[in-house]
Each structure stands twice: as C-alpha cells, then as structure tokens.
C-alpha cells in the first residue's frame, strides 16, 4: 500500500498534484510507480479519484507530494472540475502509441486554463516511451505542442521506469519556485494584501485553504 506516512512535524510543505489525461494512458500506473515504486501490468479502471503521496527531498526540506489520480473518461469531467481546486501542479499525460490521446491534449489544456487556479504548473508527459516500435506520436510533435502552450515536456515510461521520478522532481521544484516568488512579493506588499491559498500552503493540512461556494 502506498503508505508513506511520516510524522507531521517533519513535513515542511504539501503540494497537491493532479494527473490528467485520457483513459488508458497510464495515469494510475505512473502514480503507483512514483509513490509505491511498483509496476503492475494490469490496472482496474479508476473511478472518481484516488490519492497517494510520497515525501521527497527538495533542497533539504521534506516536501510531501500528494498526487491525485483522476478518471479519464469524458463523462466524469464535470465532476473532475472540483478536483482542480487548490491544485498546484498538473501532470498532463498522453500515450505515445495512441494518437487520439495526443489529439485530446489541447482539449485538456483548455479545461485546465478554465478550471485550475492561476499559476498552476503544468507538465506534458508522453507515456509508454518503452514501446517505441508502436510509436504513433513523434517526440518532436510532443515537444512542439508543449512549446506552443508554454509547458515543460517529458517522455516517460512507467514500465521501464524512465523519467518518472524526474517528472515529479521537476514539477515540485517549479512549484517551489512559484511559491518562493509569491512569498517574496507577499513580504514586499504585506501591508495590504489578502491571503491567498498560495501563501498559506505550507500549513494546508490544518487550514481550510480555499472554499468555493458550492
């Protein structure tokens, strides 16, 4: 079981990360690989959402990455919207052996832009790069798409454990950068600024950070 629980006081921050993408691109698999260091050939379809976490070391501080696994099917999307709340990082994933999942990426980006909080750090990942014989999407195309939308890009493979940790490490570093920048700005204009969920994030597990009206 993906239980990486640590005493609360040793955790310096908690980052909420979402994995999105079409059904079957390997979202659950990626989470299991990252959080449990395991790979299974067969997964049950995700329904609703699951949550796993792992504590990583980020420049000497313990950062807990809480990764939310979502269901990929279109019908669930209205409900997935509520999951965007408070997300700091998003891993958007497609399957390099499946063109359709790549073609849907623009749709996903659109919904991220509409739903996710501003300043969310998004990374595009082409999964299953071990299956290069069945490749349907060239690496260049992925890179180009990512460039167009200003995203970082990785090709990864859960099966062969290529780039999985790197993706998470990268996204965590970026979140930290954004937070640090925010904190500085906050210090400068501390007098008349209202707290946003970003500036309170390190204490997020006991503070109600952000609540929508529904």
């Amino acid at each position, binding site marked *: 079981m993906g239980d990486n629980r640590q005493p609360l006081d040793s955790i310096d921050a908690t980052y909420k990360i979402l994995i999105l993408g079409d059904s079957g691109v390997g979202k659950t698999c990626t989470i299991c690989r990252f959080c449990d260091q395991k790979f299974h050939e*067969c*997964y049950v*379809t995700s*329904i609703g959402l699951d949550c796993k976490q792992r504590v990583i070391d980020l420049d000497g501080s313990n950062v807990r990455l809480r990764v939310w696994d979502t269901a990929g*099917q279109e019908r669930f999307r209205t*409900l997935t919207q509520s999951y965007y709340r408070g997300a700091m990082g998003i891993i958007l994933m497609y399957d390099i052996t499946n063109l359709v999942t790549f073609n849907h990426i623009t749709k996903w980006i659109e919904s991220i832009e509409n739903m996710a909080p501003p300043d969310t750090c998004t990374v595009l990942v082409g999964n299953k790069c071990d299956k290069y014989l069945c490749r349907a999407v060239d690496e260049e195309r992925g890179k180009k798409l990512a460039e167009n939308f200003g995203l970082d890009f990785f090709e990864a493979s859960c099966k062969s454990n290529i780039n999985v940790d790197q993706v998470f490490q990268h996204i965590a570093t970026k979140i930290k950068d954004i937070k640090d920048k925010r904190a500085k700005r906050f210090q400068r204009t501390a007098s008349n600024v209202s707290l946003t969920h970003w500036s309170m994030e390190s204490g997020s597990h006991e503070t*109600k950070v952000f609540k929508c009206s529904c």
Partner: protein
Amino acid sequence: MMATFSNIHSKDGSKARFWKKESKVPGSITPVYGAQHPPKLDTPSSSNSTSPKKSRHREKDSFEAFESKTEDAWDDGDDDMFLMPNMKMSLKDVHSTAMEVINNHSLRVQTANGTEDRNAADIHTGDAVPPLNPHHHRLGGPGMGVRMNSGNGTPNSNTKITPLRFANMPVPDREVAKIEKFESLLSQNNLDLGDLRKLSWSGIPKQVRPTCWKILSGYLPASLDRRQPTLERKRKEYFSFIDQYFDTRHQEIHQDTFRQIEKDINRMERFIAENSWVSQIHIDIPRMNPLIPIFQQPVVQELFERILYIWAIRHPASGYVQGINDLVTPFFVVFLSQYIDNDIELDNCDLTQLPKERLETIEADSFWCMSKLLDGIQDNYTFAQPGIQKKVNELKNLIKRIDVDLHNHLERQNVEFLQFSFRWMNNLLTRELPLRCTIRLWDTYLCEPDGFASFHLYVCAAFLSRFSADLKREKDFQGLMLLLQNLPTHHWGNEEIGLMLAEAYKLKYMFADAPSHVKKR
C-alpha cells in the same frame, strides 16, 4: 420523529440508548453476548456496562428482562446462553427461559404457516438477518466481535475464500427450508411478487437465485406459463440487436483484425476512435476484475463487449460510462452459476467448454437484467451525472444526522464526500465489496422499491458508519483517504452484509418518509 432526532444529538453517545428504546425492529435491540463473544474487558465503549454482567448481579427478573430482550438470538438456533461461564442460574430462571423459548417457538411456527400480517420491518429484518449489534461497528474493524451463526464467511474460517466464492459451509436446516419455500413460490402459476420480495429480502439461496433475479428485476413475468416464451422472445430480440448493430460494425472497421492488434499492442484504440465510448469499452474490459481468472478469457471479454456496446448504442443519453461494466458482472456470474455444478470451479472454469447456446442465454439474460437495473439509475450516467451528485450530497447530510462526529472529523481533515463516495455511487459499491457480497447485496436491492437508487444511499450510509470508529482513529487526511479507498471488506460474507442491510433498512425507515431530515440545514 423530530423529537426523537433532537434526542439523538442532544447528548453525546446517547445513540445506542436510542436504538434500544425506540426500535421496533427485531434483531436490533441490545448487543447479544454469548459464551463465544463475552463483552470485552478492554473495550473503550462505556455503553458496555449495560451488558449481561450487570444483569447477572441483579435479581432474577433482570435476567428475564435480559433474556426477553435477546430472545431473537434464539433465531440462530444456538443455545450457547447456557454455556455462559460464571453465570449462576437458579432453577426458576431455567424453567422460565425454557417456557419462553417454547412459547416463542410455537408462535413462530404459527406465523411461518402463512400468516402475512407481520409488519414490514418484521419481515425484512427477521429470520436470516442476524441480530443487529449496535456496538458492532464501534468496536474495531469488521469481523471483530461478530456473532457467528455457523462459522460461515468469517475471517477465521479455514476454507479458502476467493473473491467469488463463499466459504464452503454446511447447509443448515433453515436454509433447506428456505429453498423449499422459494421453490414452492416459484412453481406457483401466478406468483405474488410481494411474497417473493419478502422472502428474497434476507438473501436468496444460490440454487434459485438466477430465476428470482430475473423475476425481481422485471425481466421475467410473474406468470409461470409466460416465463419460457418471454425468455425465448427476449433472447431472440437481443440477438437481433447484435445482428443489427454489432455484426455490421464488425465488417465496417475490421473488428477481428482490430482484436488481433489489440492483443499484440496493449489497449490500442485508434481504430475505433470515432465513438469515444466504444473505445472506452475496449479499454475497460481487460481491466475488469483482474483477480478473477474467468474475466481474462476472450470469450467472456467479447460477451461483455457486446452487452455493453448494445446497451450503449440503445441509450445515447448516457452512452457507456466507466463503471457500468462492473454492473454486468454480478448478473453474468449468477446466470453462469446455474450451468456450473460446483462453485469451486466457477473462478477458473474454461468457458469454451460451455455449449454455445448456454453462453448465449447467459449473455442475453445478463443484458436484459442489466438494462432493467440501469433504467432505474440512468441519471447516474447522463451528462454531469446528476444522480450521483445528488446522492453524494444526501449521503453527507445523512451522515451528519446519524454520526455527526464522523461527519465533523472528515470535514476537519478536509476529506470531501465526493472524493470517496463518488465511486460508491458510480459502481454501486462493487469496488468496495467482494463479488460474493455484491451478489448478496443485490438480492435485497432487487426487492426494495428503487433499490439501486434510494435504498443504495442508505446502504452507503450504513457502510460508512460501519467504519466510523476506524475512521475516527485516523488523524490525518492521508490516513483517512487510504482507509476510505481500501476499506477492509475482503473477508466479508453474508453476515456482514446482513448487518449492513438491517442498519440501512433502519435508516430508510427513519428518513425515507421525512426527507427534510436529510436536507441541508
């Protein structure tokens, strides 16, 4: 009713007392302790002080009171009351108890002989549903402190339990009698559906389950004469759908070729990308029930694919939604079981050995029964899934009414009901329970009006509060989510489901006619 509710919440922990005083439901009265399960000394619950220990120290009439409160324990046919250690009993006590038992027994025989005037609660929670112990879900996890009927389905059982199969258990006499009742009912020319529901509510014996399910779901008519013709007509109709929709699709996009490619290249879907839900079916099926080998057989996967495809194409408002595939499984397994003598084989049996016609009848029957089921819950799967959103909200409000501590605990840790109970609604708990338990659960769902929709809500509430104590022990978000996503039910059997259903029935009894009680305040 309002007054009673304010009662519940006025004092902390007065809930247990409430049930004792108010409940008219047999089997729900007091905790029943026997020699097998004496009250635990180290249990934290304060209400344990109302256990037999106390009554022992009082005069004989208090024993009688205790005895009469627990007389439903006799239903189980266990007389371990007399084996209770350290229990001093006067001859008078023994006599009075014996008399009571004899009286009760003759009473029961009378009622069993055809009198129908027991109230609904009586029927629903009587007989096979074991006495409900209000402490049960408070004391540790499932399986702890559970009264055993005959050792069936308990974690300590030596028999290997697979996700599909119940532990091998001796068929008790009561079970034999029950089967006889079912058989006589089913052979009546004009079956009374009400009778069948009453009888089935507390669980349907395996032998008669396929027929009962078909009748209860509305697929088969009550009239005996019309059943066979209906079956034949419906099966024909289903296969005409296949001819109409499925086989033509085969030719158009070279399904066979696709399947071959699919085998070689894992979950490849680009050939049928036009209809997103068609490809969805393809992705989900190999992922279904990975622990049960029969679902890995191509014959079965193709069968499921056809059922889901035909249903989806005939229900464009929802189409195929992930999770619907899980709802075919219980029907498939139950209808398959009638052609396989020994349950043990069911997990691994090679379906290519089964005659084609039989597989076809299983397929058609599963399709129609699943269609009937989905008719009642279609708003779970239409755009924005309003049925699920509504039920998740109702669940939250219901928990707030019945277990405010748990509700607040979850809220404090920022656990939202949508985060864990979405799947409970979308998949009707099939992901949370072993398949054998889902099947038992559906026996009851099929008997309840609107069972898969409104009654399911109460079951979910009972299910969640069952783990209330465990959840309250988890002090952080992650611990809560981990537990909620992997609730320990793998060893569950009929007994646990029976308890949960009795609890759910009680909730329904309390809240169903008073919907404002579960409205947000």
